[in-house]
């Protein structure tokens, strides 16, 4: 998504637009403007888009200022900022926020490091590259519902994780009730997030590594740079844009964590593994408090927006490059 907003494209488009206008004056036969035609091409899609995406976006803000009634003919009551004030005073909202941030920190960093490491290993010529790529990418294409249930099974009390840690490795007693406590639950949920996401970041990094200038790597080797120095001085700057892209996408993905929590712990016990979206979902569709749920969604949307803007700025500042 970041590709699409960079300045050069916008400038190019503006120039094209200007030259098209000039062209029309000089050469009226060249009918690129096409009158009504482009609007007819755009109309069906844009109509659907406005009704089902834009209108709900506006309505999310509106609903967040109301005690929104969906049942029967009850009138919704205007509350002003009450739903937002309530969020800030709601301990469960803070627990959910902290859990979301914990999930982001715990999953984004390992996904980047491991994904990059696998990409670097695969980038060295290996006859089995395609096979490895497929194997690492399989969790990415598998449905969240299936893998969430699968991990609930692996982390069950009598599950294979407890057996491995307790009976084989002997590092725990082997009777950890993973999904019955806040932090162990977050560990299980984060483990799933990392396992499922490594293949994706690996794929992006593999593509980016194609762009690392081979000559520079060789020159650095000749100059006596060791592997780490080559990585830091040659490889890292060349893949910086991809790194920024992956980080932003993973952080946004982290804020969106929902299915795994919903299916592994259901936010329990007693809401202690709740994340923002599961809490929003519970408020809206279990307690039918759509106004409060919308307020949480709006807060989350704002944070995600601000975060991705800041993060892109920070990355750009360092190497002065565009995002990929």
């Amino acid at each position, binding site marked *: 998504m970041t590709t699409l907003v960079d300045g050069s494209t916008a400038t190019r488009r503006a120039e094209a637009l200007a030259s098209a206008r000039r062209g029309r004056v000089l050469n009226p036969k060249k009918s690129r403007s096409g009158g009504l035609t482009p609007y007819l091409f755009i109309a069906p899609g844009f109509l659907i888009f406005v009704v089902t995406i834009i209108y709900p976006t506006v309505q*999310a803000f509106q609903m967040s200022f109301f005690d929104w009634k969906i049942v029967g003919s009850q009138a919704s009551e205007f509350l002003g900022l009450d739903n937002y004030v309530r969020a800030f005073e709601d301990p469960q909202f803070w627990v959910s926020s902290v859990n979301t941030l914990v999930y982001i920190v715990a999953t984004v960093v390992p996904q980047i490091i491991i994904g990059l490491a*696998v990409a670097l290993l695969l980038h060295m010529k290996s006859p089995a590259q395609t096979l490895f790529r497929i194997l*690492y990418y399989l969790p990415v294409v*598998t449905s969240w519902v299936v893998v969430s249930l699968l991990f609930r099974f692996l982390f069950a009390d009598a599950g294979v994780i407890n057996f491995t840690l307790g009976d084989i490795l002997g590092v725990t007693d082997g009777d950890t009730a993973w999904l019955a406590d806040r932090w162990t639950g977050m560990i299980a949920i984060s483990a799933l997030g990392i396992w499922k996401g490594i293949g994706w970041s690996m794929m992006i990094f593999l593509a980016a590594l194609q762009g690392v200038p081979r000559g520079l790597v060789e020159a650095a080797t000749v100059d006596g740079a060791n592997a780490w120095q080559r990585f830091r001085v040659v490889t890292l700057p060349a893949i910086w844009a991809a790194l920024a892209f992956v980080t932003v996408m993973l952080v946004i993905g982290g804020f*969106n964590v929902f299915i795994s929590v919903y299916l592994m712990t259901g936010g329990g016990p007693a809401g202690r593994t709740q994340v923002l979206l599961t809490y929003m979902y519970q408020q809206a569709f279990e307690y039918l408090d759509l106004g409060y749920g919308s307020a949480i969604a709006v807060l989350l949307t704002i944070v995600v927006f601000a975060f991705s803007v800041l993060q892109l700025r920070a990355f750009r500042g360092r190497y002065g490059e565009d995002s990929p």
Partner: protein
Amino acid sequence: MRSRATRTARRLGFTLQHALLVVGALIMIAPFAYMLSTSFQSQTFVLTTPPQLIPSDPTASNYSSVIGTQDIFRYFANSVFVAVVSTSLSLLVSSMMAYAFARFRFAGRETIFRVLLLGLMIPAIMLIIPQFVLAKNLGLLDSLAGLVVFYVAGSLALNTFLLRGFFESIPRELDDAMQMDGANAWTRYWRLALPLAKPGLATATIFTFLNCWDEFAWALTIINDPEIRTLPVAIRIFAGSGNNAVQWGVVFAASVIAVIPVIIVFLIFQRYFVQGLTSGAIKG
């Protein structure tokens, strides 16, 4: 001249590289293998200690139960229907928009484009509450049409951006030549642009199809009627909400049935996955 020491170091590096890759690959694959094996185990052997990685007494009873009493093929058919219809509609409508953006200059082009961009930045689940209210007002709750409409909506912006890029890379001269021959815009779009953008269409089709196939949150929210459950919702119902009574064999038999088509699609169309990812905008 290469010394023997360098060669030994090289061979050691190669071995280490592959050892690491194999260990990693095993960790990625092991959960799937265990899922497959559990789907062939009867409930008595599930979650016993030590865990049975290879079923001692393999049985197909979970599959016959899922296919027979649990009616999985109905859910399978629902998922196929929703995914096929949504993907076709989304591709038709978004490729039309993409063509207009790639080939025409018109008033409001920039603005419309920016509005679509905005749509890319709003994660789908953030809109689930107002969309639920909208679906209720449009009478779309508890219907497959309700899934289709919002799946199309959710995929429009992304597909438009993806396809616009492909259309722009088609030489403009071809378009002009066809126009000289008197072809109207629809003919140029349908006969020239679409066939030449096949790789882009393939990428968009695969990602849209898989996203619809796997979608859970929206289906969970609007579908109540057991007859019209899609696979993800049905599998979640199999798993229930308690912990001890879960028929894991049944859950995983259903999961295997749901996942196999995805893996087949992935293996056949691998290169489109790479293409879709590196074109920048898709997180699968």
